[in-house]
């Protein structure tokens, strides 16, 4: 393991526990995404790895070396900040060159490295500007260039894209992907945006309230969410989770009724909106739900049903729904292979 968190706990002065016994390890060359809602501890984990914060207990190791109490500058880690944190009094060139200057790299070497990096990030034209004269995307590239120019083994990025507008975000996302493939570095990327996480990560760690909930490849996390939280967090829209009771192989909750492979008892049923299928009303597996709201996000359509007990169920389809109006009943079915089950009490995935 190149990087590992061992039982790392971070408690702040005001008593809040930001990280609770985090155990996490990954290899060099990976693109790790720390994902979670705000307050989940993902940024804290990132800063602990950077050395900007000290854990209250536990150990952090990099390539087997205990770095728990090692200052940032001895960890060989680069970092990109959410607000870029460029040095406003230095030119772009000097900003990028700064880590090299600190390491007393020869001037010619600096010149070459900065040029290369600028080339790679397509900011070679702006090298003589001051940060104030850059657009958000340009500033972001400078920040990335600065973090990478000295060839650190690991590069941390703390929500680097969240200050960019939507288009630029997509663009930068692609750039980062390209960069990762090209440089073969370990990237640790913090975000609350699951789409970013899905597209970038080789593996992603989902955190909730300071605890690691699931750590796996994106597709696994999508396909086999470890618990109800992950299920509800991932996907757009998120997975439908329906609390109900199984009786004789049939799951029932309000208008919902479908065949499941579960023993009797209460269970939470999960199904992705895009996996709900339209069905002729007379088909055996069909259930009838009433459309509450229709949202057209072309080419898809979202149909939101109101189930008894106040739970909403969302369906996502590419089928033409022009004919369907709110208030209208629609027949759908939950294919058995698309169903996920979660323990009704703990929310844990049950197979």
């Amino acid at each position, binding site marked *: 393991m190149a990087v590992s968190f061992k039982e790392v706990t971070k408690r702040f002065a005001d008593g809040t526990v930001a990280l609770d016994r985090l155990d996490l390890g990954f290899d060099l060359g990976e693109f790790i995404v720390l994902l979670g809602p705000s307050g989940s501890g993902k940024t804290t984990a990132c800063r602990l790895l950077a050395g900007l914060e000290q854990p209250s207990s536990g150990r952090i190791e990099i390539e087997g070396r205990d770095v728990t109490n090692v200052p940032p500058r*001895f960890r060989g880690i680069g970092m990109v900040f959410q607000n870029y944190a460029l040095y406003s009094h230095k030119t772009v060139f000097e900003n990028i060159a700064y880590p090299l200057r600190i390491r007393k790299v020869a001037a010619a070497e600096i010149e070459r490295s900065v040029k290369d990096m600028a080339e790679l990030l397509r900011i070679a034209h702006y090298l003589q500007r001051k940060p104030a004269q850059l657009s958000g995307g340009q500033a972001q590239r400078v920040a990335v260039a600065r973090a990478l120019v000295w060839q650190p083994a690991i590069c941390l990025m703390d929500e680097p894209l969240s200050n960019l507008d939507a288009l630029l975000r997509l663009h930068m996302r692609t750039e980062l992907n390209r960069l990762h493939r090209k440089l073969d570095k370990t990237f640790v990327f913090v975000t609350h945006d699951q789409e970013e996480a899905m597209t970038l990560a080789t593996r992603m760690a989902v955190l909730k309230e300071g605890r690691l909930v699931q750590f796996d490849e994106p597709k696994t996390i999508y396909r086999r969410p470890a618990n109800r939280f992950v299920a509800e967090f991932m996907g757009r829209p998120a997975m439908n989770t329906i609390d109900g009771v199984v009786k004789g192989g049939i799951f029932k909750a309000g208008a919902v009724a479908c065949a499941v492979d579960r023993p009797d008892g209460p269970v939470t049923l999960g199904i992705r909106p895009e996996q709900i299928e339209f069905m002729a009303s007379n088909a055996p597996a069909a259930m009838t739900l009433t459309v509450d709201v229709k949202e057209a996000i072309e080419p898809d359509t979202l149909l939101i049903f109101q189930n008894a007990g106040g739970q909403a169920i969302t369906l996502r389809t590419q089928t033409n729904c022009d004919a369907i109006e709110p208030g209208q009943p629609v027949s759908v079915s939950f294919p058995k292979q698309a169903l996920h089950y979660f323990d009704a009490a703990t929310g844990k995935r049950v197979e």
Partner: protein
Amino acid sequence: MTKGTRPSRGQFLLDRGASMPLILPAALLVLVFLVGPFYYMVYTAMTDLSFANPDQKGVFIGFDNFRRLVREDAIFWGSFWRTIRFVLVAVSIEFLLGFALAWLIWRYIERQRLLTTLLLVPMMLAPVAVGLIWRLLLQGDFGMATHYLRAVGLLSQSSAVFSSPGLVMPTIIAIDVWQWTPFVTLIILAGLMSLPRSPFEAATMDGAGPWRQFTDILLPLMRPIIALVLLLRGIDAFKEFDKVFIMTGGGPGTVSELLSIYAYRVNFKTWNLGYGAAVSFMVYLVVLIMCSVFYKAVYWKSADQEARP
């Protein structure tokens, strides 16, 4: 690939626990050179120490000095209330005038830099020089200001400002206003410039007129800065010494004897250091109370928010 090397102990210190070493020199300096002497003063205030009278060797006498000061010293109380009046009147005028000027500049002047710099001149002059300048200007025989005051009839031919007991304090207040109004103006102006636009636009949409906008929005938004400027001016006005000392020496009679001048006399003219320390301590006490009230009421909260972005 650049790898981290192992940190040495010295490097370790640079990185960790760096805040205490950074704050320590400042705290030490203040403790040794300000707090130390201050406590010496407090102690002295409880002795009969005098540099003049050989019988007063600095014997501990408890609160006798304070008792005498509070119960028997009419001159102390005279100068105390005079100082309070001076602070109230001078600071109020400075505030109102300074606010009005700041508002005018804010509304009507686009290029402010030269103007504001020139306005800073009076407050940047050495207090010793300010006292002398005004002594020269208001001199009764060849003072330039005296001449023009007489010419426009503000002053009779047969009187002079510092020789007319009734005019002395108003004049001192006017000079303080001259010196410090620009300071108030600049600080208020800085506050006005940093006001957000949206509350005013919202108020306009809600149908508030200019006056309502001023009282309901501008003043509350400016509250912290108004408090700051009143606080700074209040402290300095209470300690006012150099100007008055050079211009009138506290006279004629006692009409301009402020607390600080009384403290100076007791300390440096009669060398009654024990009693003088008691007087000084009272000055400090009043200023401290003034500050604490202001700071706790207005500033503390906003400072706290400021500190955590």
